[in-house]
């Protein structure tokens, strides 16, 4: 018996008895919001035929913290610490995206040293984000905590760097309009360089752990394929887009910061499956290490903040601006409308992981429930950003 279902909501649950075969009957399962591998409070309503996914509807909003409304009620500066809490793995890149948008809105120049510091911190963020993502992904595949522990160990080293520079492990609140808040000392840069120099050892280890591993290959290759056309139409960005073979990286396209001064390549995938997405992260970590090494060599001395920018009573001129950067998860944009006051009139975040979830259903159809977890893990979502 096979049932066709128009909408998940209209579906009646078929009677499931112990003796009946589950194939051909649809079973509705609500996964989440409390689920060990949904990466936070994410929920999916899944219709299963046996073990195969026939329909999947994501349900959001369990971490909807009204970021945009609060952003409209506090001053421009006051929103900066809130951006830390969007994608709480990558507070530095969130800071940068917001600072970049405000700088566009108000036409602020950033000193050279500050731009270099921003590049260094953004790439460090990318390293720790990708490392922890791989840890979580392997955790979802059943490797339990071991790779996650290794990933968090490396992450701790980078968090120590963040903490000694900005004062907080996760919520750095480091960037300001027209520059950065604290200058990095020579010792800090030397220490950071040391950590970055040793980082490839960890990447190699991780590569050994996953690249040739039969279990990983069996679980990821040809799972959750995305075609490049669908990815572009659905607005997928970041490593997930590049895994489909579309060469689009905001660092290259917009050339914000001082990225045009650095030599780096954009890794591209071929099949757009989970394995490619996973490898994209491994390869990007290597490129980030390259950028960081160049940045440590080139960083000039000088001021770190534009002295013309006021801290208090900062009022950008009337207008609007959309600024975007390549965050570790994809294109992170901020859209701000100023009415000349101290608060933005409209404050909008373009969250990459929210929009990357658009094609979750397309990727999961026809796969088993166990694969859904792996596919979801490879998208790299953080609920703080999905729901805001």
């Amino acid at each position, binding site marked *: 018996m096979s049932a066709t279902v128009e909408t998940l909501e209209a579906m009646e649950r078929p009677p499931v008895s112990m003796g009946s075969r589950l194939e051909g009957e649809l079973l509705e399962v609500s996964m989440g919001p409390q689920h060990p591998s949904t990466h936070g409070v994410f929920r999916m309503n899944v219709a299963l035929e046996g073990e195969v996914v026939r329909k999947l509807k994501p349900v959001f909003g369990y971490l*909807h913290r009204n970021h945009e*409304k609060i952003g409209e009620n506090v001053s421009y500066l006051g929103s900066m610490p809130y951006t830390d809490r969007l994608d709480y793995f990558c507070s530095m890149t969130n800071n940068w995206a917001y600072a970049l948008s405000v700088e566009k809105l108000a036409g602020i120049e950033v000193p050279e040293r500050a731009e270099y510091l921003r590049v260094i911190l953004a790439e460090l963020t990318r390293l720790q984000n990708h490392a922890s993502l791989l840890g979580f992904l392997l955790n979802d595949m059943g490797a339990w905590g071991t790779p996650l522990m290794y990933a968090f160990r490396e992450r701790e080293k980078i968090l120590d760097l963040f903490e000694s520079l900005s004062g907080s492990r996760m919520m750095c609140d480091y960037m300001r309009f027209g520059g950065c808040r604290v200058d990095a000392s020579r010792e800090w840069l030397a220490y950071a360089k040391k950590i970055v120099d040793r980082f490839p050892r960890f990447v190699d280890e991780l590569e050994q752990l996953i690249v040739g591993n039969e279990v990983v290959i069996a679980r990821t290759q040809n799972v959750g394929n995305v075609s490049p056309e669908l990815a572009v*139409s*659905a*607005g997928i960005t970041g490593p997930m887009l590049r895994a489909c073979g579309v060469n689009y990286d905001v660092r290259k396209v917009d050339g914000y910061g001082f990225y045009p001064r650095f030599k780096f390549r954009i890794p591209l995938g071929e099949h757009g499956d989970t394995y490619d997405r996973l490898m994209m992260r491994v390869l990007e970590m290597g490129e980030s290490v390259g950028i960081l090494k160049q940045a440590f060599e080139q960083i000039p001395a000088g001021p770190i903040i534009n002295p013309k920018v006021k801290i208090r009573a900062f009022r950008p001129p*009337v207008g609007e601006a959309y600024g975007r950067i390549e965050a570790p998860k994809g294109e992170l*944009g901020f859209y701000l409308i100023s009415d000349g006051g101290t608060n933005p*009139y409209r404050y*909008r975040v373009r969250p990459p992981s929210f929009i990357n979830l658009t*094609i979750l259903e397309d990727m999961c159809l026809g796969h088993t429930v166990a694969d859904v977890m792996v596919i979801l893990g490879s998208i790299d979502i953080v609920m703080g950003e999905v729901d805001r």
Partner: protein
Amino acid sequence: MESLEEIKARIEAAVPGAKIDIVTNGGPSQQHSLRVDNEHACDVAKWLRDDPALRLDFCSNVTGVDWLDRTVKKTVKVKKVVDGEEKEVNETTEEKIPGHIEAVYHLYSMTHKHGPVIIRIRTSDRVENACLPSLTPIWRSAEFQEREIFDLYGVKFDGHPDLRRILMWDEFEDYPMRKDYREPDDYEYEPTPHDDVLERAKPYYTPRPQIDGAESIVEGSKPT
């Protein structure tokens, strides 16, 4: 990428009847946008996506913006003949703009790596006719973002495949991102009282008995 004026001229040639205004942005970012009328929004969007020179295949960001009723005062220097002499006189004109909700789409091209082209569509008012054409059939990335605008601003998108609340629960009735939304009064323990927070919520919801001394009212109504 060609200028907005050129794009406007080409749209008007390609989509007959489309009304396009260029909305200038006076800020330093200089991101000007195109306002498209609702009837032709889908055609214009399709043309923008498919035109070989533009190929705006990537809709990055969809935003709702709530504009309340407002009056814009414009001061223009006009040459007038006053007492037989030509003088420059400041003339203030007041323009009333009725409230509306706007949807802003930021478009980029992944093929040609250019952008952004910003298009805006607006509803005719904020209450009954808060309807807009959905651009999800053209760019799938608009699907969740338009749902979000429906949820938080209450704009109905015609042609959207799955228009439900996305962030708030289904029973919720308000549109919280609107500028005139008042949140429920549930500030009971506020040791750092900023009175505007407390005051803001009060007139819109009945006060809760525990905090506003309803008990004493009950006591007072007792026959003594």
